[in-house]
């Protein structure tokens, strides 16, 4: 894998991981181009894109797009599942993960990603093992300062709601689905029914 990007439906970057050395200018250019292209795709289209000499595999979960760049001989479908497994990991770690969890705890999201993918290759595919590694590291930190955890883990749902509306400024919550807090949980975006049946989080 060459890189992985997470961005919101408003085109805001939420996470970026580059497995190939590129200059900052290059990275910005790629991000800008890709965000535009992916956002312009319609929901029924393929989850793949040919872009320059790379293949882009992307998937939308609620308001977040997960987007990976792979080489031509790599397997597109398994990359989709890598994305899915990552979302599962996030979900398990944060407990019904939503975009805000990732925004406010992005370093945790990075830690999980690093346990899961290392140097662009799947490092550990057992969900249990990844979480174990993360939690061990977390425990260490908790030991060090039990009384003062560094970041708030969970924001109360009311706050979530309020913040969410502000986050999507310029794009007020006009869509019905967003007025309910429960929908903020990262779930697969609207896709054809058949696919939904197969994939989709609990």
């Amino acid at each position, binding site marked *: 894998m060459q890189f992985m990007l997470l961005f919101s439906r408003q085109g805001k*970057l*939420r996470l*970026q991981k580059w*497995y190939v*050395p590129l200059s*900052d200018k290059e990275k*910005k250019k790629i991000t800008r181009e890709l965000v535009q292209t992916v956002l312009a795709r*319609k929901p*029924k*289209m*393929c989850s793949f894109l*040919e872009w*320059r000499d790379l293949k882009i595999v992307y998937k939308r979960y609620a308001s977040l797009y997960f987007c990976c760049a792979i080489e031509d001989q790599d*397997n*597109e*479908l*398994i990359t*989709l*599942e890598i994305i899915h497994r990552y979302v599962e990991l996030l979900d398990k770690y944060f*407990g019904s993960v939503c975009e805000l969890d990732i925004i*406010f705890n*992005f*370093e945790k999201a990075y*830690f999980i990603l*690093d346990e899961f993918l*290392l*140097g662009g*290759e*799947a*490092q*550990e*595919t*057992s*969900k*249990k*093992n990844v*979480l174990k*590694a993360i*939690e*061990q*590291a977390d425990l*260490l*930190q*908790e030991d*060090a300062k039990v009384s*003062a*955890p*560094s970041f*708030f*883990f*969970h*924001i109360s749902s009311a*706050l979530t709601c309020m913040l969410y509306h*502000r986050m999507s*400024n310029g794009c007020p919550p006009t869509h019905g689905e967003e007025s309910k807090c429960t929908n903020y949980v990262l779930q697969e975006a609207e896709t*054809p029914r*058949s*696919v939904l049946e*197969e*994939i989709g989080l609990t």
Partner: protein
Amino acid sequence: MSDVVEKTLTALPSLLSLDSQPGSTKLSSTSKLGSLIRGITELTSKHEEEKLIQRELVSIKEQVSSPNTSMRQMKDLMVRAIYCEMLGYEASFSYIHAIKLAQQGTALEKRVGYLAVSLFLNESHELLLLLVNTVLKDLQSTNLIEVCMALTVVSQIFPKDMIPAILPLVEEKLNHPKEIIRRKAVLALYKFYLIAPNQVQHIHSKFRLALCDRDPGVMTASLHIYLQMIQENPEGYKDLTTSFVTILKQVVGGKLPMDFNYRSVPAPWLQIQLLRILSLLGKNDQSTSEIMYEVLDESLQRAEMNHNITYAILYECVKCIYTIHPKSELLEKAAKCIGNFVLSPKMNLKYLGLKALTYVVQQDPKLALQHQMTIIECLDHYDLLIKRETLELLFRITNAQNVTVIVEKMLEFLSTSKDDYTTTDLVGKVAELAEKYAPDNEWFIETMNTVFSVGGDTMQPDIPNNFLKLLCEGFDSVEEDRKLRLFAVDSYVSLLQGKPGNLPQRFLQVISWVLGEYSHLREELDPATVMRLLVKLLERKQTSSETKSYVLMAMTKLCRSGEGVSIAQEVSESYSSSMDTVLRQRAHELQHLSHNLELRTRVLLPGEAGLEPLEVDSSLSFLDGFVSEALAAGAAPYKPPHQRQEELAQAKALSLEPYSLALPISMSSCSITDRQSPTLLSMSSGLSGDSTDLSHKGGSTTLKLDGVKRVWGKEGYLAQREPIEEAQIEVPSPLRSPIQQTETGNSHSPSPAPTQSPEHEPEKQQLASSLFVGLSSQSSVCLMGKSEPMPQRFRKKAKGQSSTSAPTSNSLISLPSTVDHLLCTNLLEKTPELSEVHAAANGTCDVEAALVSHEDSNTPQDLCLSSHLPAELSELFHSEISPLCSTQSLHLSACYVQKEDSLILVIFITNSSDFAVHDVHVDLDSEQLEVSCASDSPVKEVRGCCVAVCQYSLTVKRPSAHVTVAGMVSHQLHIETPQTAQFSYELPLTSFVRPLKVSTEEYGRMWLDFTHDTKQNLTLINDGEEPLTDTLTVLKKKLQLHIVEIIGMEGIVACRLLPDQPCLMHCRLHAGSLAVWMRSSLPDLPDCLMYHCQRSLTEH
């Protein structure tokens, strides 16, 4: 038990969050990151955001540099800095603090520090050097978490040059009791292997340990390394095939722990990785492929569940089945899979189905026929990606009969596509098809016109070049040539008379050239008319100066008499004072010509007679006099561009390498004034510029030519052709079972696809018949590259032939039935001189050899065989004679002999039977080596109980630490069926190394010319008084180097790789080890030699 653990673990996060819940409200109000994020969300404009972030950055900057900031605060600051960078604002001031945090923080702080480093810096960032010590410390830490963190950061980002510093520690971790540490260590080594393969060459055996690790996670991690290594050298790992197959069998059979399951599929990632490895191993190798048929079949059967993950495995399986040596049952199943993919309503699967179809279509055109209706539907798909892939598929099945329809579809797509990359790619393909299969002149010119206007200025420059070459070199018939040119001229004149304004510059250049060259063919066309059209181009503002100079050149060819001359005079007048020197030059030429009638008649009127080929002196030897004169007068000698750049870079940037700085210092400390280090010497010779030395000049010309070649290679044809050629190579030989043949026959009538919509049916049927014409069973042969039903209309001469012949021969190689024949004819054509030694006089020995070889003991055979060495070689050093392979009656052994200027591979063919063996052919092939025959007459038969000897001379094409020759022997015993056997023979690179006797001055001069270098610290041999001399002597003895000079703590050594690739080595004693710096003009040579130096020193 594990269940209990798992439950506890899954409960953990909720426990943690419960823990932090009470504090969360408080934290969110005080957390700086929280308020920053909320601050941003409250803003309404980009401008405000920018202001806010800049303020934030200023405050972060202030705090990070304050000495009172604790590490904990630092961590928060770092997180905020990462956030700012993610938003696209630069926070480079914090990089150094990230490193500091990783160094000094504890636990989580360190973790954030490492994370920040891996996000902020990239591999070549100079600050990374500061991280090395921290990583070293953490790798040695007793805290597992810290070790994990260090390994994680190392496998993401680490300076290449510092790998040796931590390598032993990482290696040690391969034996760590915790599997997570072992796994991370393996991945770190994988990373090292990717960025500096020579550094980890010596631990290949440990990779095998990792592969056999009891933990599946560690084993999975090691497969990344194996995939990479097998990609580079599939021959070297054939012995592992059985192991990989066994692993895959176990995985598929569900023998792994449950938590490796993903959606109840056992370890899909692992399966896919293994399938990829197997396809690499089984490619073009029947015996290896046979090992995997069973497990592939099983994988196909198991993957029946209806989910993405099983599709992923199926897809990989199908790819593997079509890559390895074919087996009809598997092919059938795979074809069915592809069918399911293509027909699937899910876009992702449809796309992959098309992709797979594209991959296999040349081998199995009937598949495309079966799905023609789906393909046609996909041609009009709303998703451009699917459309694009369909075109790719059509591109592969294009032939002379369907070319017009396919090209039309491609051009249609081009007109809607806005993406530059796609445009460039497709335009190249259209041009290729047009050149190959054009049905007539008009179509060809018109298609090329579209190509030029759509492709614009982004297309590959060799499209217009090839086109012009084709026009001017022509093909077989003179009349055809004339017609094509005439048509081009007509078409361009009418284009220029219309609206030339929108045409891209490249196209205008082509037009100008063609009009200048060929407009005289159209007799009724007045040159002055053309001139006037060209003048219009000149007057346009958008016309670039390159195009203008094309136009002026065309005018030079056109200005013959009358009005044309006066136009030319006018034009040249206005451009003779142009600021552009090229334009000015052209204008002056034109001016001169237009004023001089005599010159005009002499130059222009002979017309056709001027077509005789010019001899070009590519070495520019006619300039030698001028050059030496200039040099004598004090001019600086020519330096190749890369050297100039290097010097420029050295002058500009402060060199951060302590090594090069140390050179002059160590010299002064030695206080040797009359001797100079190589670097200084070469600098001075470069500056004073009085070098008229021939060898140096020779070196620079060759370098220059290299440069030119490289530029050409980069830009064009190769890059564009490669994918196609590759695909053709990948096509394994089609196994035409009787069943398949009948099926192919049946599919002649298009089988209706279930998805077709009835109302469009007639149209689509029509389109189908025009698209898939020529794909029927009979002409499917042509797709395999055996024969062309229609001769290619335009055959490019020089370049084109070589590029079209390559895939053909490749695909032939993959056809086993034709292989032998082809190889035989090749061998005969090349008249490989093989010699048979019928040692009748030495009969006893032969009998002995035969007897012994039956008993498979090598030493006595070795003795006997070595007596068969040709006289001229027997005096020289030869390696141990090792067995290669045997067939029923023949035994092959080989050794190599090091001659001074070449390396000879000697193959002994021992016939152990009593009968003569006929039609013996030995064929050698190597990716890294150039193989040529070196003996006198071909061996065709080996009589009973005799030994025949073949000699081959080898030179290195592409250095690598060990080079291998793969080969095949085929023969007939009596009237029996032909027998073949394959073998491979490995030689160390050192056998190609010879001493290079140069003086210190010459050494200095060469040093600066070379660009590829590597540095490493090697162990010093410390037994004697003079460690440097001792070490160098050992190296000299083992590797055949030439010690140029030893001065105090430094020594310079030179050698050459046969035939004449010099490699220079500079050694210096430094802190108890030998700091070696190697340079060569060949990319991988220093790395490989370094590996051998390292090995011979450790062995000592």
